[in-house]
């Protein structure tokens, strides 16, 4: 699904003394079937932006198109269900939102809310649990008997069960151990290759270069830059000025270049870094 923002602005608590700009003049198109990373300092507007994609927040000005659906400041809350079924949102620490007695009931909640029959929802729950790598016998367990990492998988299964076309992930690996992180990122990467669009809010630049093909940098509620990972990380000074980090491989290569190593290659991930070094020394 293509997502486009035209002159979108959002003001928190408009017309009150607490008025505060959330987004300003956002013009941006995210292509269908992309893996887009949203980066920027805390408070830069990333989370406000993603909440507009499934109309949890509505713009105070401008227009948003998500597939066939248009969202404007006047959009009625009534007809948003189809949109929210197509755009699945995984919030930070989603495990804190589990509430049902069994894993199965918890995963079924979303699909049934979007109008699936109980039988269909059961089927979807089974499939989604499998997608997140948990065995079927977990369906009968209480979500509260699971480990933190497993609870997070169940919460993600709950979003996948509605079969959204676009998946929005807000720091989905925060707090996980390295193995858990890798498994989780591999899951999202597989979903991407199975045809879903992924929008990932992250502070982790290694995830950006390892998985994303498209990057949007937010700063003070505006889009500061939009491009491929290599375009975004090409300008070290700009990255620093925007309070961002360079991926480790980029930083390492920059230091070697500063020493005098001559190459036009710009490695982004460790595999490319090793190749560049071995080819040039």
């Amino acid at each position: 699904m293509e997502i486009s923002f035209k002159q979108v602005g959002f003001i928190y608590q408009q017309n009150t003394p607490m008025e505060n700009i959330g987004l300003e003049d956002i013009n941006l198109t995210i292509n269908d079937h992309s893996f887009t990373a949203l980066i920027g300092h805390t408070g830069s507007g990333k989370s406000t932006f993603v909440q507009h994609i499934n109309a949890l927040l509505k713009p105070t000005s401008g227009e948003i198109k998500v597939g066939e659906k248009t969202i404007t400041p006047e959009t009625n809350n009534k007809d948003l269900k189809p949109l929210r079924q197509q755009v699945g949102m995984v919030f930070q620490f989603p495990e804190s939102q589990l509430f049902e007695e069994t894993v199965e009931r918890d995963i079924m909640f979303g699909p049934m809310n979007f109008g699936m029959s109980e039988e269909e929802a059961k089927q979807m729950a089974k499939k989604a649990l499998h997608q997140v790598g948990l065995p079927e016998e977990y369906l009968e367990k209480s979500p509260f008997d699971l480990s933190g990492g497993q609870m997070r998988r169940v919460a993600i299964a709950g979003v996948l069960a509605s079969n959204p076309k676009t998946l929005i992930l807000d720091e989905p690996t925060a707090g996980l151990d390295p193995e858990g992180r890798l498994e989780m990122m591999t899951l999202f990467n597989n979903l991407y290759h199975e045809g879903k669009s992924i929008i990932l809010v992250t502070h982790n630049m290694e995830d950006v270069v390892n998985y994303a093909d498209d990057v949007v940098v937010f700063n003070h509620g505006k889009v500061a830059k939009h491009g491929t990972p290599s375009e975004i990380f090409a300008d070290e000074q700009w990255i620093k000025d925007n309070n961002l980090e360079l991926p480790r491989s980029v930083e390492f290569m920059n230091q070697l270049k500063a020493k005098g190593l001559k190459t036009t290659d710009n490695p982004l991930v460790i595999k490319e870094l090793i190749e560049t070094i071995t080819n040039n020394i």
Partner: protein
Amino acid sequence: MTNSIIQINDLNYRYEEAADNALKNITVDIEQNSWTAIVGQNGSGKSTLTKLLNGILQTNEGKIVVNGMELTDETVWDIRKVIGIVFQNPDNQFVGATVEDDVAFGLENQGIAQSEMKERVISALKKVRMEEFATRDPQSLSGGQKQRVAIAGVIALEPKIIILDEATSMLDPSGRREIIQIIQGLRKELDLTVISITHDVEEVTLASDVLVLSKGVILKKDSPEKIFTDKDLLIKAGLQLPFVQDVQQQLIAKGVSIPDTWHDEEGLIEEIWKSHLNK
């Protein structure tokens, strides 16, 4: 006279209903003013060990001595005064409506006089560079700032040992750096002993000692240099290589002539450059 602040001797622990011991024959000394990183996969016994140290869990097998006191039912409260813990989730550890109330909470529990309490709160907030936020609502702070307040709450109680229980795992990279810097500073300034339980290998490289646990057993306790150059150990413990060591090993495997010894990022770049010039 030893300078160990914690001595653990032949400690065993088994959870009720568990088939196997969660900790097996743990014997280790933690030196005063050291920074010990405890690493190991989930289920390795890291959390069990810290819970035993603080008397949250109890065992009849083995002996724990903290700051010269043997841990028993009689000493557990005195030992808890010596050990401060900062937990993983900054949002789960606030009780006060303002930052200063929150830091004061632990002091109130210890019955510290009002005037002294005020002083200690301000001084603790200064140490974590959060004094300007004293009257703010903790919920309005960033993750890194929240953890700094949590650290202030611990420091105000003047512990000798501070345990960071995955305290940086939920923070962004700048928040993480902030916390590490502050703890490094406090360790020097207050002669603190730091024990950090962490999955972040980059954080482990900054420790003075690394304690590697696997399935309830200590595999090794040594400097980060020794730990991260012991390949068999890394595989056994399921530890990742830090970025710099990963690059180094991959280059060596490709035949680049650089030494196999421990280097930081700057050192490795120097070695690669030397190898380049020697061609």
